[in-house]
């Protein structure tokens, strides 16, 4: 996350609206879809404002390399990767310091809710590709990964949901977009387990006072819960339970 200097463009207009017309406590529009890839055991696609991410889950399957296998539980891997064309300047392909870090913390967030003990000596691979980035990609990536894991039929204690909050022009705001992230004062992505309200991932850069921090935390929690509702809705709408013979009669 680039902490740039002050911007010439005001991030808030005189009515308190943000550059994309949102209120301070408003999420960007989010679209989700599951089962988008045929070859993967589970997959999901998430569009979150200007972010476009696709997640694929493989497994549980044989552990490779074999020496990593654990006879007590499954091994979880998580790969966060940005496509070279996902940002304005070309992103050099391959893992870099930033994506290795995001992969690690996201994996650790998922490890605490995926029931790895069900599948000893196996491996569950999660791949997330960022096709288009507009700040908040790690949250969008984790949201997509949780959907893909559910779609793969992997047992979990909850559906992870993530959201960020930050500070722009001295005010706490939900779900920053790129300009707000670059020229704002702070950004704080979190991932939660909505059922228990526990925090699974927590990062922050920039500075906030104690009050601002508490406000941002609550805001991000509420944002993540909204995201969680959308995740549930997406999964439930994929399969609708109807009676085929009754439907046939109706059509006739």
């Amino acid at each position, binding site marked *: 996350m680039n902490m740039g200097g002050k911007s010439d463009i005001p991030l808030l207009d005189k009515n308190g609206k943000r550059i994309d017309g949102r209120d301070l406590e408003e999420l960007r529009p989010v679209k989700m879809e599951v089962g988008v890839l045929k070859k993967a*055991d589970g997959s999901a696609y998430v569009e979150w404002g200007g972010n476009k991410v696709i997640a694929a889950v493989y*497994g549980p399957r044989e552990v490779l390399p074999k020496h990593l296998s654990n006879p007590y539980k499954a091994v979880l891997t998580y790969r966060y990767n940005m496509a070279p064309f996902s940002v304005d300047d070309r992103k050099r392909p391959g893992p870099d310091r930033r994506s290795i870090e995001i992969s690690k913390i996201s994996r650790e967030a998922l490890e605490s809710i995926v*029931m790895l003990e069900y599948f*000893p000596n196996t491996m569950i691979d999660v791949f997330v590709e960022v096709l288009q980035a507009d700040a908040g990609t790690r949250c969008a990536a984790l949201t997509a990964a949780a959907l893909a894991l559910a*779609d793969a*039929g992997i047992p*979990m204690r909850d559906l992870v949901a993530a959201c960020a909050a930050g500070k722009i022009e001295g005010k706490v705001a939900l779900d920053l977009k790129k300009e707000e992230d670059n020229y704002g004062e702070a950004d704080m992505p979190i991932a939660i387990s909505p059922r228990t309200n526990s925090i699974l991932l927590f990062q922050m850069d920039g500075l906030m006072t104690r009050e601002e921090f508490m406000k941002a935390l609550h805001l991000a929690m509420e944002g993540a819960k909204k995201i969680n509702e959308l995740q549930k809705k997406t999964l439930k709408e994929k399969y609708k339970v*109807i*009676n085929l013979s009754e439907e046939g009669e109706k059509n006739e």
Partner: protein
Amino acid sequence: MRMIVVPGEKLGEAKPGKLPQWVFRDGDSLYSAVYGLFDPEKGIRVTPIHGKYIPRPGDIVIGIVLSMRHSGYLVDINSAYIGFLHVPREGIRLEPGDVITAKVSSRDEVGNTHLESPRRLIKGKLIEISSTKVPRIFGKAGSMLDLIRKGTGIQIIVGRNGRIWLRGDREKILKAEKVIRFIEDNAHLYGVTDKVKEMLETDDKDNEQVNEGR
């Protein structure tokens, strides 16, 4: 009425006794661990919509021989685990790539899976479906499978691991495959049996379209 549940969704209050599969307990409540189907009228039980096959002793599976070892064969059983088929010196001779049916004789707590009573499958067509949909293909006491067998007149062997082997007339195999794919796609719905009967009764006129579709 069946409903769709997601991981972490509350199913009901905890009662003493053993926990059903794919259900976990937190405090006084029971929650679903998977994305699946739940019927509150039939008690607390969740059927996953997707998921890898986990070998269980007694299951009949269809495997593909991967390689030879000193005392047997490694067999891909479309699962998180690879099966090992022990074959005595005078037993069956297999080659990598052979398709066999076998029975799961045991699986230990770390996933080592042993197979027994192999039978080689020759010719025919092998298709794969999601292993969670296999009970639907069987139907109650094998009724759905009987229906497909009678309707098409071909040989069908269903492995619990989601592999199905079909042998017989080519046109009939395609018809059976169409029916099986239909059951797989609509396994969560009511009234599938009637639709399957209807599909099997119609003539093979529309078979050509199926060929193009697959």
